């Protein structure tokens, strides 16, 4: 196991100027935690001063029990070959986050997706409101309190002749009068 010198150095270089906390996860992985106002400064600093020029990934996690959204920005330095995760938590009620598509253009795609899937607003975000969904007026679907099963039951219907939603094997037995082979029986759905 390496002694993680460059990871420690990166951690100090990022945490000291901004007085934020962080840790080295393992080799090539460092994470820092900051409040939402500091995120863009940290990212810009890492990009311009430390050489973390590649935005590898951005994502959001809905921590419904804490009533928070966690936003994770993963950036990568092609020289140091280390990932830096910049993490922040924002309120789940009326979530607003700073738009960083001035720092990386491709952040626009991630932000448009997050706006649609989690309902997070990014002021000044350009691009069409619909990303993958069209005319969606329900709750943003990637939120944990959106129940896909309930939505499917309310929105879709069984096709004619299958209203009872019975197991296909049972329906075949009824219609054809033949027995289900033993090996298939154990897979029958329990209702």
């Amino acid at each position, binding site marked *: 196991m390496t002694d993680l010198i460059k990871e420690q150095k990166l951690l100090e270089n990022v945490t000291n100027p901004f007085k934020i906390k962080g840790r080295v996860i393992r080799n090539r992985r460092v994470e820092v935690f900051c409040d939402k106002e500091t995120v863009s400064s940290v990212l810009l600093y890492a990009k311009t001063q430390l050489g973390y020029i*590649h935005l590898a990934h951005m994502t959001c996690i809905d921590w419904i029990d804490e009533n928070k959204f966690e936003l994770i920005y993963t950036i990568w330095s092609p020289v140091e070959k280390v990932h830096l995760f910049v993490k922040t938590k924002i309120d789940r009620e009326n979530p607003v986050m700073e738009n960083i598509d001035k720092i990386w253009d491709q952040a626009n795609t991630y932000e448009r997706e997050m706006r649609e899937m989690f309902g997070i607003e990014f002021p000044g975000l350009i691009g069409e409101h619909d990303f*993958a969904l069209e005319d969606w007026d329900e709750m943003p679907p990637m939120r944990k309190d959106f129940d*896909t099963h309930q939505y499917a039951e309310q929105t879709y219907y069984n096709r004619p002749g299958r209203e009872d939603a019975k197991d296909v094997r049972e329906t075949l037995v009824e219609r054809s009068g033949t027995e289900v082979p033993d090996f298939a029986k154990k897979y029958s759905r329990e209702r």
Partner: protein
Amino acid sequence: MIREKETTLYLGPQHPGITGNMMIKLKVQGDTVVSATTHVGYLHRAFEKLIERRNWLNAFTLLCRFCVPEPDPMELTYARAVEELDNREVPERAKYIRVIVMELARLQSFLLWYAGQAGSGGLYTMGQWSVGDRNYVLDLFEDLTGGRIYHMYIWPGGVRRDLPDGWTDKVLKTMDYLENRQKDYNQLMFDNTVFQKRAKGVGIIPKDKAVEWGVVGPPLRGTGIKSDVRIDEPYEIYDKLDFVVPTFEGGDIWARAMVRQEEFRQSISIIRQAIEKMPKGEYYNKVPNPMKWIVPEGQAWAKTESVRGEIGFYVASNGTNKPYRVHAKGAAYTHGVTVLEKVLPGQNIADVSFIMNSLGVCPPEIER
């Protein structure tokens, strides 16, 4: 001089090129693209949401369908992220098998790319040949996993079953065949003046902007930048194998094609080396009952080099038997939206799908 009016042209959504369903709104003047806006949303299947309702292993049935030409890198990346969360060791033999599977997946994806790239340039014979040859690679997958396209073979802790008897011999024979076929492919495509004239100087990605734009994989190496997850952050046993990461200057379609031409040879060489060095032993560090398997709380990021560039998975667990959040980011997420919108202005309408193929745009991966 005749002044040409600006017109709006909707390209797609029915398979522009052979990439998948997406639509590009082009503003054109004559036959030159002035600006391009991409629209996805025809292939959203809510996989990430559905995975949250399934247990850790059930997720594999959905993961491999993120991007049709490349199911295996998705499986491997997710498996590696889960292994990191669970601190699960992978047996040495399984690592070799995984590398062989990954490189076979790369070859089959290359052969499909040949068809798309040559086909969108008007060379239809190439597609007939390469898709035909791809079936020989799919035969190997069928022998190994039971499935031709979707395999669900790589699992956390290793692979699902050991190699069948005589399978490696069959692989080596197929490699010899594919290596010999390179001559025919070169004559038909890479040495073909039609292809060269259409590819050179078209769809240029500037070298100084490439990393910042989020370009990865062959398009990045086609600008002369040496970058590959297999050497930048070696996984499995790639650090024990001898292979070259090709680069080519230019940043155009031709450069990307040259990179892929060499990578095809490298994949064949990697498979031969892995088969030669593969040890005997266990192939699976068995996970507990999958229905009750609890993965410890935490978050992990894993990335893998697919044929179109890096694929990354961010996986979060809250200490239950289901993933709390799985997010996948493939190469197409940047290539198919922002990079494409930057590259297209100034190009000819006929080159749009040609450029899309060379960038490895895969719409099902963008929206998942």
